[in-house]
Every structure is written in C-alpha cells, then in structure tokens.
C-alpha cells in the first residue's frame, strides 16, 4: 500500500518536472547565454553551500549530531570581520591601496572568529551533553543558534552593514559566449582550493587521521591513545574554518551582512549535506553544488513552462522537492553509504 503510494508520488513528481521542462524548452524564452548564466550563478551559490555543508557533515560524522548552530558560526566570523575590520579599513583608504592584504586580513579574522565561536559552543554547550540522549544536543544547538544571533546583534547592531566594495574585484571577464563576474570566479577558485586543502588535511595529517578514527569508533580510538576531546574540537574547528571562509565569499558576492544572515544559508547547507549523504565529505560538496544549481536553474527550467506566476519565488520549493526526490530513490543521499546497523 505504502510502496504503491510512494511509486505514485515518484511518478507524479517526475511527470510534473518533465512536463514543465518540456513546455519551457518548447517555448524557449532564453538564449544559450541565459542558460549558461543560470548555471554559473548556481555554481557560485552552490560553492558557498558546499563550504558551509562540510561543517554539518564533519560534525555528524564524528558525533552523530546535527549542529544547528553552524549557520551562526558562518555569520559570526564575517559579521565581526566586516564590522570591526573591513569597514574601518575601507574608511581609512587602506583597502583601496592594498586590496589583497586587506582581504587576507579580513578572511583570516573571519575564520578565526568562526573557529573561536565553534570551539566555545562545543566546549560549553555540547561536551557536557555528549552522553545525553540524541535530542538534547539538537535542542541545545538550536538554543545556541539563537544565543549567538542576538549576542552579535548586541555587539554590532541590527543594521544591514554593507561590505566595502573591492575595486579590484569589480566587473567581469569574458567566458564562452557570456561574461562571468570576477567575484564568482574567485568563489569557485577559492572553494576548489579549500576542498583540496581539506582533503589533504583529512587524509594525510595526524589530526585528520585522529578525526577519522574517532568518527569510526570513539572508544577504540581512545584505547589507541587518541585524545578524543581534542579530535572533536578539531572537527568543529575545521568545519568552522570552512564556514568563516564561506562568509568572506558571501560578503564579496552579496555585499551586505547582518546578524540574521546565517539562518537561511545554514538551513540550505544542512539540506545540501543531507542531499549529498550526511557524514560524507565529497557528498557535502556535491550536494551543495547541486542545490545551488537547482535553485538557480530550477525555477526557469521546471516552472516557467507551467505558466506559474512569480515562479522565482518558488526556488526553495524546487530545491526541497529535489531533495525529497533524491531521498525517495536514495535514502542515504547521493554519495552516502547504506549503513547496516553496525554503527548505530
């Protein structure tokens, strides 16, 4: 009965998507350049989701908990770096003279604050609850999320703060038959470099090995002489570093920050992590990229042909429909492993 219903649901979603796509392509309102633009926007947005999603996936892999405060780690870094460093630097004219140095400093501060907030949260809010039932850390994480939002609102105000314009990064460069914004190029390049560095860190260094062994089995890892607490802190720090970096890219592309900016990207990145297979690092990257693409290309491709008014408002619906669709076919996510009960 339920299986039959699920099959019907799958068929219905696929039919609607296929019909919308068919109608859109039939009356194709867009040039190939437009489609390419949509894809580029999607890749840029998806890269940011990927960087944030890694934090969710790493922590889940080690602690089997969903850290809902992760969006706030992302916000805290760049909100602090913008308010306390970027705006004064721009006002003093230093930023125009040394854009690269300024951006490096802002990025470093952003990552440092994100890591600091992550370590504090882990130490104060999560560590005492490590052996509590699973729901407790989850609720605590939601509480921590609110706490940090309003803490930073208290520090830097509830205003939308503009990130200073970086003259060197303005404008765009030609690419195939369209142009790509320099900021978008930077986002993609930085994301790729960050992922390569992360891969090296996880697979080749001692700290990475400790993280992996703790995620495999905490008790055995402790018996082997691994400092479990330190490995877990390291996990949080790694995820927060990526989030702090994503914050800088976000500020460069969207040009404004405020205390509530972490909430929606946080939810979206969590979705991306689930889409790719929670606990799987390459999965987080793939999931982020796909989610960005769905949001950017989806409304025009699937919905426009159906004649839905204001279809761009439904981009979140598209993204989550795709998530449901993927999870119906692959409950473990795109790259997740189908775990037997051995780890539970």
């Amino acid at each position: 009965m339920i299986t039959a219903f699920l099959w019907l649901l799958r068929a219905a979603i696929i039919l609607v998507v296929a019909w919308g796509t068919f109608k859109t392509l039939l009356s194709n309102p867009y040039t190939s350049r437009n489609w390419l633009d949509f894809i580029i926007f999607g890749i840029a947005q998806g890269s940011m989701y990927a960087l944030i999603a890694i934090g969710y996936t790493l922590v889940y892999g080690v602690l089997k908990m969903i850290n809902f405060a992760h969006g706030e780690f992302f916000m805290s870094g760049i909100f602090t770096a913008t308010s306390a460093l970027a705006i004064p630097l721009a006002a003093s004219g230093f930023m125009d003279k040394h854009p690269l140095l300024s951006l490096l400093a802002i990025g470093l501060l952003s990552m440092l604050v994100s890591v600091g907030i992550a370590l504090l949260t882990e130490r104060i809010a999560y560590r005492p609850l490590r052996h509590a039932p699973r729901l407790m850390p989850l609720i605590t994480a939601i509480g921590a999320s609110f706490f940090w939002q309003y803490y930073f609102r208290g520090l830097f105000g509830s205003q939308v703060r503009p990130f200073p314009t970086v003259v060197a990064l303005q404008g765009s460069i030609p690419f195939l038959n369209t142009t790509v914004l320099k900021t978008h190029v930077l986002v993609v390049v930085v994301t790729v470099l960050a992922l390569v560095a992360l891969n090296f860190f996880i697979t080749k260094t001692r700290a990475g090995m400790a993280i992996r062994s703790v995620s495999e089995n905490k008790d055995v890892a402790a018996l082997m002489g691994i400092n479990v607490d330190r490995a877990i802190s390291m996990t949080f720090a790694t995820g927060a570093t990526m989030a702090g970096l994503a914050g800088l890219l976000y500020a460069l592309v969207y040009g404004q920050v405020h205390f509530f900016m972490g909430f929606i990207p946080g939810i979206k990145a969590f979705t991306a992590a689930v889409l790719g297979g929670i606990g799987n690092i390459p999965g987080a990257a793939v999931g982020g990229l796909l989610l960005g693409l769905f949001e950017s290309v989806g409304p025009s491709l699937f919905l426009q042909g159906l004649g839905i008014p204001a279809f761009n408002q439904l981009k979140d619906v598209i993204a989550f429909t795709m998530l449901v669709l993927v999870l119906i076919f692959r409950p473990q996510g795109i790259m997740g492993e189908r775990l037997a009960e051995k780890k539970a």
Partner: protein
Amino acid sequence: MSKKAFSILALLVVTSLLLAACGAPAASGGADAPAAEGDVVVAAGDPIRIASALVISGPNTDLGLDSQHGVEIAIEFKGEIKGHAIELQAEDDGCSAEGGQAAGQKIVSDPSIVAVIGTSCSGSGVPMAQVVSDAGYVMVSPSNTAPSLTDPAQAWKPGYLRTAHNDKVQGAAMAEYAYSVLGLSTAAAIHDGDPYTEGLANAFRESFEALGGSVVAFTAVNVGDTDMRPVLTSIAASEGGAPAFLFFPVFTAECAHLATQALEVAGLENTVRGAADGCFSAASAEAIGDAAPGMYFSGPDLSFSGDVYNQFAAAYQSNFGTAPISVFHAHAFDATNMVFACIEEVSVEGADGSLTINRQAMRDCLYATSGFQGITGSLTCNEYGDCADPKIAVYEIVDGEYVSVWP
C-alpha cells in the same frame, strides 16, 4: 532525564503549541461587526496610556524607530491632557504578520490602553487590525500604505485608520514619473509577497499601463533571498524585451541586493531602477552604497514647513542626536496628535479627578476627523480610515542623502 519525565515534557510542549496555534482573539463578543465597548477609566493622578506598535528590531528598525520618535515628541509637546500625564508603551511589530498578531494581543490584553499608534509595516497591520478591532480599540498607522488596509472588501476593520498615504497614490506617482518624466515605455515590477510590496507593485502596474506603457514582467522574490541574479536574468529575457524601468518596492535588505545586482545582469545595463518608501532610510542608503547613482525612490514629500515642523525638527535633533532617519516621523506625530485631540474631546472628568474615555466615542471621533492641521497637511478621514493628505515625491541618493528630484 527519565523517559517518563521526558514524555510529560513533550506532551506539555505539544499542548502549548496547539493552544498557541488556536489562540483566539482575547475579549471578543463574537459578533459579526463588534461594536467598541466599554470605557477606559483613568484614576486621579494616573497617566493616560497609549501604545505604539512599530518595527524596532531587524533590518527595518530605522523605519519604526523614526516613527516612534515622532510619537515621543508628540507626547512631549502635549505634556498633559486634562491634568493627566501621557505614558507610552512601545511594542515591536516585527514587520511581519506574526509580529503584528503578537503585539496586538499584548496591547488589547491591557484595559488601560486608550489607542495604538501603529503598525509600521502593512504586513503586520493586517492581523493587528483584526485583533484591535475585535477588542474595540482604535489604531492609527503612520506608515501602512497597502491599498487593501482601507478597503472594506479586503483587510479594513472598524477602528483602523492611517495618516500615511494610500499606495494607489504612490504607485500612480512612480508610474507618472517613469513614463512621463523619464520617457520610459516598458517596465517590470518585483514584490516579495508582503501586502505592502504587492499592493504597491500592483498599483504601479495599473497606472503604468493606464498611461500607455507596457509591463513586460511582474514577479516576486522571497524575503531573505540574497541571490537575485536568476530572477533578474529572467526579467531581462522577458518576451517584451528587457524593461527600460525596473520597480521593486521591497524592504531594505532585498532592495539593496536587487539594486546592486541589477547593475551586473546582462541586458539590464541601461535599465533605470526604482524603489519606494520601504527602502527609504539611512540604513537603506548605506546598504545600497555605490549602486545608488541612476536609481530613484518614491516616498512621501518631506518638504514640510511651518513653525510646528521647525520645533519638531529641533526637538528630534536634540532628543535623538540625529536628523530624522526615515520618512514617517511627521505622519506619526500627526497620528498621535489626532488621537490626543479625540481624547480631549470625548473624555469625561469625574468629580474625584478621574477621567472616563468611552471606546466607541473615541472611534467615532477619529473617523469624524476633518480639516485637522498637521505637519503633513490637512487631514480628513474617510469612513474607511484614509486620513492622509497625500503628497508623493521622487528622490535620488546623492552622497548618502535622499534628495528630492520631482515634482
């Protein structure tokens, strides 16, 4: 925590959620058209209490705080009514339907409050008008501009009035400016689903088409969206070609994203951008930053004059250390004074020095307001609470300041 305690806790949480979800408006007779009932009795020596419900948190704080300053100055200038001081209870409307609902419930649960100045945002005004009306209170909004709020077929409820203009006027003014002054014949509009933004975008569309222009795209984004490039690319690829004018009457954050990203989207390089009074504050100007040149803003005409305004502006500067930070401070000042005029008119002094204010009389008095001389002009309320003397101007940002360019 033991399993049992946990299930009890879970049960409690679920029940409280259910109760909150069914939260029926307090103190309502359940009649179809509830008449205002009861009296507010202010004991001898007690202050007369009014409430404000304006947006004083989040990205639109400037809008609400500016209006609240207007209310505070009106109270300061008035001093007292029939020997009673005046006290303000300042609430937050959150610029959302939930916020308006919550602030409304909180206010009507307090029987000592005579009237409400609020809300800032039309989206909060719709649910709050319902709550306030059911409880027999009155509210005068300094900045709700959605046409639906004074339309009895839509959101209007007895007891709701406003001193802000109706956006039918603002939409028409922006259409007039784009079509006749700038000579642009194609346009597109973007709203965010909120009653204010949708109402204004619709008013603009109707007027622009009536003038003879064509609206090639009419679409929406979500509050909280940051990546506007896909929607802008869709608009640039409209069947009628890329629009010459792009009107997005949304709030601060989305407005700034649209304003900056429209410059970078292929096909919109020569499109003139326009926004409205939801994007008209110091914070908006700061957020738009370098993208300001070539963008226009409609809003109430702020070229006020007269002795009262000069005193008002001086008081604003000395009390809050800044020039007005948004556009509805004067409307809030006028709204508060309209309420005071009616309290003076309908309140009855008792032998023991107490003051009795009948809620129905308060309502009747406010709707009967005619030729009230305020800073914003001569206010006359119609039967559905439109009291404004609407004058719309178009502005641009020069060096971070809004400068009037039309009329």
